[in-house]
């Protein structure tokens, strides 16, 4: 394999992990924009997406498509229950309390997953096809194409929902100004619940499409969640294209760094980028040009 095809290989695999980070990042941004909460439990829904698909497929033994659907539904229900039981009843919703309570929630969900499914790593089969496709000396798996396709589809549906449905428009109104939204008759609390439902289902989809390539276990949520947050920060917490680009940049940088520098420091790269961006451009990379908050 020559150098050019090696770079192409890193680029392709970087873009596919980047797509996953984008989906997780969008989940962060959606909740943040409608509530001002950074949901530290976001990563756990990614874990649930993968683990529940494995569970329904291999333990309950339902067909693949049904397993995926059930996994997304269960994760979404978990997100909704989490909002109702832990976030909504909070008497003093200060930043500090919200950070601590969402961390508590994430530990709880992770602990529960560990007790139910054990500490083993599980795998789920690729969606369709497993023969590698060769492209200019680089290889790509059909699963990568699935990841690109599904991510693209989710982003499009997301856009359509936020711009053309009443609920989506109401949620955008909450993001701009919650008091004003409630004055024109929007049920803000319901919108908060919606945002948790949407972002947990997006997290679950991300976890599900990544699991055939990366394997899944009870503790994958921490790292994936943090990387997703990183993507959202690069994108300036935008609910749209900013975060998607952020995820792609992060994925590619990480894969190049792992390939060309050292794979041991792969995870550190994301956090160094995170710190640099927070220090230098806390508003995100493309704040002026692209960002519009959803």
């Amino acid at each position, binding site marked *: 394999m020559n150098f050019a095809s090696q770079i192409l290989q890193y680029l392709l695999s970087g873009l596919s992990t980047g797509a996953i980070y984008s989906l997780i990042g969008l989940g962060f941004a959606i909740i*943040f924009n409608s509530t001002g*909460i*950074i949901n*530290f439990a976001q990563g756990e829904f990614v874990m649930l997406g993968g683990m529940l698909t494995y569970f329904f497929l291999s333990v309950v033994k339902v067909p693949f498509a049904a397993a995926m659907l059930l996994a997304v539904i269960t994760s979404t229900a978990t997100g909704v229950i989490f909002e109702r039981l*832990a976030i909504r*009843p*909070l*008497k*003093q919703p200060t*930043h*500090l*309390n*919200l*950070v*601590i*309570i969402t*961390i*508590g*929630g*994430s*530990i*709880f*969900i*992770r*602990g*529960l997953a*560990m*007790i139910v499914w054990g500490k083993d790593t599980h795998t789920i089969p690729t969606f369709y096809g497993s023969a590698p496709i060769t492209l200019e000396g680089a290889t790509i798996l059909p699963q990568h194409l699935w990841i690109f396709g599904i991510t693209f589809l989710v982003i499009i549906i997301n856009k359509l929902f936020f711009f053309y449905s009443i609920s989506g428009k109401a949620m955008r109104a909450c993001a701009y100004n919650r008091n004003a939204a409630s004055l024109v008759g929007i049920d803000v609390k319901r919108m908060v619940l919606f945002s948790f439902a949407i972002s947990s289902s997006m997290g679950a989809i991300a976890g599900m499409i990544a699991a055939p390539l990366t394997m899944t276990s009870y503790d994958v949520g*921490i790292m994936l969640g*943090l990387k997703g*947050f990183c993507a959202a*920060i690069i994108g300036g917490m935008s609910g749209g294209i900013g975060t998607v680009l952020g995820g792609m940049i992060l994925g590619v940088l990480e894969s190049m760094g792992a390939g060309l520098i*050292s794979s*041991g*420091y792969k*995870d*550190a790269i994301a*956090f*160094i980028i*995170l*710190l640099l961006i*927070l*220090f230098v451009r*806390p508003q995100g990379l493309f704040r002026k040009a692209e960002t519009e908050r959803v």
Partner: protein
Amino acid sequence: MPSMKKELLTFFLFAMAVVIAPLFFSGGYLMNVLVFVGINTMLAVALNLLLGFAGQISLGHAAFFGLGAYISGVLTATCGYSPWLTLIIASTATSVLAFVLGFPILKLKGHYLAMATLGFGIIVYIAFNETVDITAGPSGLTGIPNYSIGSFQFDSDTKNYYLIWAFTLVTILLSVNLANSRIGRALRAIHDSETAARVMGVNAGFLKVQIFTLSALISSVAGCLYAHTMTFISPASFGFNFSIELVTMVVVGGLGSIYGSFFGAALLTLLPEFLRTFQDFDILVYGLILILMIMFMPGGIVRGIPEIAGALLPAFKRTRGENA
């Protein structure tokens, strides 16, 4: 705000209890646990200065603890320095790092500060794992000597108990003093409203960096004590989970309550010992404790239990009155 005299009396009683405690718990294993209660109390008090007083969250405090432990551990085990000398080197180096890092990181607020400190903690953790030539990597660093004075070795749990608690008591006294000083009041002002504090002439930016540095300094000293008590350290003790555990201790004990931090640390150190029968359930319990504490007792156990008792007692009296 209790008077200084009252504070000193409380401290004196607490110190007496610490001194005589080993007489009741001399049975080997529990002494070992009490040594850890001491180290964790130091860490929780250090984090409380930042979290409870200044209202600035850190999800990466295990990194400062780890830096203290690793700098001191490597310099003694590999380079053969005296542990007392490395205590100074390690705490100074960690403080300088915290001071330099403090300026950009404490400009951030709320969630962003939480994520930035978390990111810092993970970078340090990865560095412990990957610099195998220096730290011996994930398998851990062995052969760290105990502290000694002349020919007297701090090699038993009881000896280390007194050594560590001496440091812990000094930390508590310093913190109580700080909390009742002009700086303590300034910090609480920052906690309530940074803008208001600035308007009142508090140099909020610099003060936050100073308290962050002090907190890192105490944590790194605790790290040194840990390394030379255990004589073995591995990166797993200084990861994200431990940072969260420290936050839990402070929250359980009560934000801004120094002795609360002791109760939080003691509870969370003893709890896994009791939960051992449940094996892996302890992580679940941590999560649940965090959620329930924030929901029902946001002031921590030290303030929460009297509050609940205060709420229940009149009701109890009323029912008794009705019955009579």
